[in-house]
């Protein structure tokens, strides 16, 4: 890897250095825009005791759900953890510590972590169980709670297109948490559907500038759909 060429050519190389006990930030919302193959590589490696930061935890047998099968996750920050029977059982059995975090607060914690903001105030969660134990402060007559920024040892991200330098573009609502996740990893790994030459992407239209990206890999994706809802044509 010379200069700014972030490409790697195997998933093994892409996740090199991940260890048990680490914190992994994952992009995706439901099964949309998830780094499928990076998750599979984490499963293959069998690392344990992971803290996972992700809006959801996949479904049984797909997405982050596959990491539950071998009990690789011991702690998760997420806003919604339904749609996953195995998860529910591990949560009820106390095998997983779940820190439910409002979706917007989760997004902002990652954005703040990546942006060097150690903490911010938000009205979200004030007066609810989420606000318990957190500092409350009034601004302009309204109450807010203090939430801290967050970064992970690894961030795993799914993009659509990228150039060698790791400038990434996302496609449609598969963007979701991916841009913030990309900023919030000590090592950020991005998998994309297509890698193009530097200069092919319009500089005005980059969603994640390459400075955030450490490794880049081109993969193929199943893109499973969680709730296929259609209308009559």
């Amino acid at each position, binding site marked *: 890897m010379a200069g700014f060429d972030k490409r790697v050519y195997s998933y093994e190389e892409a996740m090199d250095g991940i260890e048990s006990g680490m914190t992994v930030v994952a992009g995706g919302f439901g099964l949309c825009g998830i780094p499928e193959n990076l998750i599979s590589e984490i499963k293959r490696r069998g690392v344990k005791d992971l803290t996972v930061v992700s809006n959801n935890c996949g479904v049984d047998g797909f997405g982050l759900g596959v990491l539950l099968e071998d009990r690789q996750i011991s702690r998760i920050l997420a806003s919604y953890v339904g749609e996953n029977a195995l998860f529910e059982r591990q949560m009820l059995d106390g095998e997983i510590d779940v820190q439910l975090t409002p979706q917007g607060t989760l*997004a902002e914690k990652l954005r703040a972590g990546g942006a060097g903001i150690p903490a911010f105030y938000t009205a979200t969660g004030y*007066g609810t169980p989420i606000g318990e134990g957190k500092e409350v402060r009034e601004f302009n007559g309204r109450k807010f709670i203090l939430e801290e920024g967050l970064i992970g040892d690894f961030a795993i991200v799914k993009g659509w297109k990228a150039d060698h330098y790791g400038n990434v573009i996302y496609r449609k*609502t*598969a963007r*979701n948490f991916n841009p913030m996740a990309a900023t919030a990893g000590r090592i950020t790994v991005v998998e994309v559907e297509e890698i193009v030459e530097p200069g092919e992407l319009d500089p005005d239209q980059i969603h994640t500038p390459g400075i955030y990206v450490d490794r880049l890999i081109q993969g193929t994706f199943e893109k499973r759909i*969680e*709730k296929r809802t259609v209308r009559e044509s």
Partner: protein
Amino acid sequence: MALTREQMAQRVARELEDGFYVNLGIGIPTLVANYIPEGMDVMLQSENGLLGMGQFPTEDEVDADMINAGKQTVTSRPGSAIFSSAESFAMIRGGHVDLTVLGAFEVDQNGNIASWMVPGKLIKGMGGAMDLVAGAENIICTMTHASKDGTSKLLEQCTLPLTGAGCINRVLTDLAYLEIENGTFVLKERAPGVSVEEIKEKTAGKLIVPENVPEMTFD
């Protein structure tokens, strides 16, 4: 007669205004989109990162990269915008969404809302609900007025863990449309054929009943 789910959605839709950016929660709120008055344009925000949500896709249009906050496949309308979840909640938290409609388990006379957790039952998470209630100036709760055994859901004080504190000022139930003002429910409209007496009986929180409580009408 208590309102049907469709009638509830229809009544909520009367609160829409031309040019409103609206976030509709799962369930009855979603149905509101079917009752946008003709000649009125409303833009739907989906908190995963879409402004200008369209219809469900046809079989041919289905795209795994295009879903709504309920994880259903969707389309976008012309002139839509797609963005990150951080940007989406910046809009929500920053008060840029004109109206949010969401369901609830309980609402109380101080505008507290409980909608995400029943202790002892499995907790699936609040998703974006806490951000939505904390961010919007303008929220309508839709819910049944009482549970099947008659227990009121419009309370003096919520019994379930809150989703947000002091943030609700409009409630549409299957029996009535109410506003919350200065620590009390105010009965504004009643469902066709539902008596003020029944509403009073099924409202545990403090309730002001004006002299004249019009009946809702539906075509």
